[in-house]
């Protein structure tokens, strides 16, 4: 299996309120099609690491590679293109655009990418909605949906461009057990069937147990690259 994501000596400082080393020399590799979870106590730097991997935070030292390509040091516009094409990011809070319908929220990144026509994009968006069991909510404004529905719409949005890597920050943190099960099942399916790589930060032991590999972090370093649960 080929390496899809490699981190080399990642160091991250927070400057406010006082200078603080959040990540201390982190290095690891993730293989294509792997479903990796990152666990650790609050404040251990796992979300910070995920944001750096997602290219949304560029203020760090060290190097990130997507496959063979060095991502570190790319310009904002190049990073935006990279996120659009190769990364699906799922936030802890859904972060949908409240003015748009659920369907439109899912379609927007795909329209931006411009790989398919509008009709095709709409068709694909409905497929993702069905996959997550929220296709009946498609035409409601995002702000009118329940928390669980919003989170599933956000997941569908992350999947729309068939990204190579899907990153999630506590994707099930705000979901009940039934919704958590749906999400987990979806993740396993896309990882196995579509060979997409998933990196998820989580507190949920059961969620981590369902993944291929769990990394454990504490105080800004990875203390275990393959935690046995």
């Amino acid at each position, binding site marked *: 299996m080929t390496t899809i994501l490699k981190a080399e000596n990642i160091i991250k400082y927070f400057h406010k309120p006082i200078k603080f080393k959040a990540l201390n020399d982190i290095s690891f590799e993730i293989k294509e099609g792997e479903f990796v979870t990152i666990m650790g106590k609050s404040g251990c730097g796992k979300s910070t690491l995920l944001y750096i991997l997602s290219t949304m935070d560029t203020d760090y030292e060290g190097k990130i590679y997507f496959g063979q390509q060095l991502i570190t040091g790319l310009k*904002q516009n190049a990073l935006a293109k990279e996120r659009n094409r190769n990364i699906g990011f799922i936030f802890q809070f859904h972060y949908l655009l409240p003015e748009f319908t659920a369907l439109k929220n899912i379609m927007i990144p795909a329209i931006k990418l411009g790989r398919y026509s509008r009709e095709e994009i709409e068709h694909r968006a409905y497929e993702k909605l069905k996959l997550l069991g929220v296709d009946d909510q498609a035409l409601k404004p995002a702000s009118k949906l329940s928390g669980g529905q919003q989170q599933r719409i956000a997941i569908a949005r992350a999947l729309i461009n068939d990204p190579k890597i899907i990153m999630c920050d506590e994707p099930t943190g705000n979901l009940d057990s039934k919704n958590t099960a749906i999400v987990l099942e979806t993740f396993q399916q896309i990882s196995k069937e579509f060979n997409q790589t998933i990196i998820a930060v989580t507190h949920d032991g059961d969620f981590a147990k369902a993944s291929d590999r769990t990394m454990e972090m504490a105080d800004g370093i990875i203390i275990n690259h393959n935690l046995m649960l």
Partner: protein
Amino acid sequence: MGNLKKNIKLGIDYEIALTHILTKKVQTFIAALAVAIGIAAFTFLNSLVLGFNRDSDETLFKSIPHIRLFIDDDISMPLMKSDSNKYTSVIINPKITNSSKKLINPQHLVNQVKSKNYVENAASWMNINLFYNNGVAQLNGSSSGVNILEANSLFDIESTIVEGNINELLSTSNGIIIGVGIAENLNVKLNDNISVVSSMGVIKVMKVVGLFKTSNSVIDKTKSYINLSSAQQLMAQGPDYLTDIYIKINNPNNAPNYTEDLKLLSGCDAESWQEANESAQSQKKTRGMMMGSISFIILLVAAFTIYNIINMSVKQKMHDIAILKAQGFDGKSVVKIFLSEALIIGIMGTIAGMILGAILINILSKVYIGGENEYFPIQFEPTVMISSLIVGITVTAISGYFPARQAAKVDPITIFRS
């Protein structure tokens, strides 16, 4: 195919902008209203300034020409001038000489002046002092010997006529148009005869063919218009005698630039209204400065209001910007989205503001203030409308562009964290 993809990309940015505008109707309305108020104030006050300025100029040019050609008084020269310091010059007391004030070949000169491209019109003119007599009543006054059509094209005499007709002067060689004050004091009516006596002692019986009324009662009590030939007779001169040529030019402000040219052309003196009327000139300058600073402050206030509201509406959408960036929208798209939102608000607000301004102008232009103009001197000014449009759209574009560009540059996470 590549082109099609590009079009779709263009589309989604504008679609997002439009959705923002349409879903946040109240916010959009308030922002557009703020722009409208700023632009309405800008349009209205600038039209006010322009109207007032133009009115003041018009009032001034009702009585004085832009440029006057005449022969100035000569001062006598030394009789014998010494060539060296050894000898004394022989002089007599410098005095005004008794040389003729007559312009040579006046009609040819008038035609030559008229042929200049900066000259709008020119009129032969003769100002004379005289007495108006009717029975024992006698009034001191001055009269202008003119070709009434030429004179009318310069000073719009027709608009002040209350009785009779200026064309009557053309058909009546001894006709006279007098101010209503003279008519009242001499107790004469239209078509009555009066006699006038010039400073040369020539007496002439004139027929009243018109009465005029200006806003100035002194003028109404002294001034009259007669034919050039009558004036020449009263001064005991022949038909080629003329003292002045009054010239109207395209742009009164440029009058001093043309005096040298006219001096060369005519061989006599040329005086611009600025030289002849320094107090009017300084008044005009004061007014210009005052109105200029008012306009500038209105521009500042309007621009600041617009900047604030547009800037705020972009800042409120910071979170949305971060979400879009996380989905892969680059800086250019973010700027495009928020710039087009600002422009939509800007264009709506500017047009509404211009309409509001035009309504205010319309209301004020119907306010009666009396005097010569009768109504408040304000009107729909196309130049002001164009500058309002430019100001409104430029300021909103700038106000939308800068915060959006700032947001476009930072990491999305930085926005989420704050």
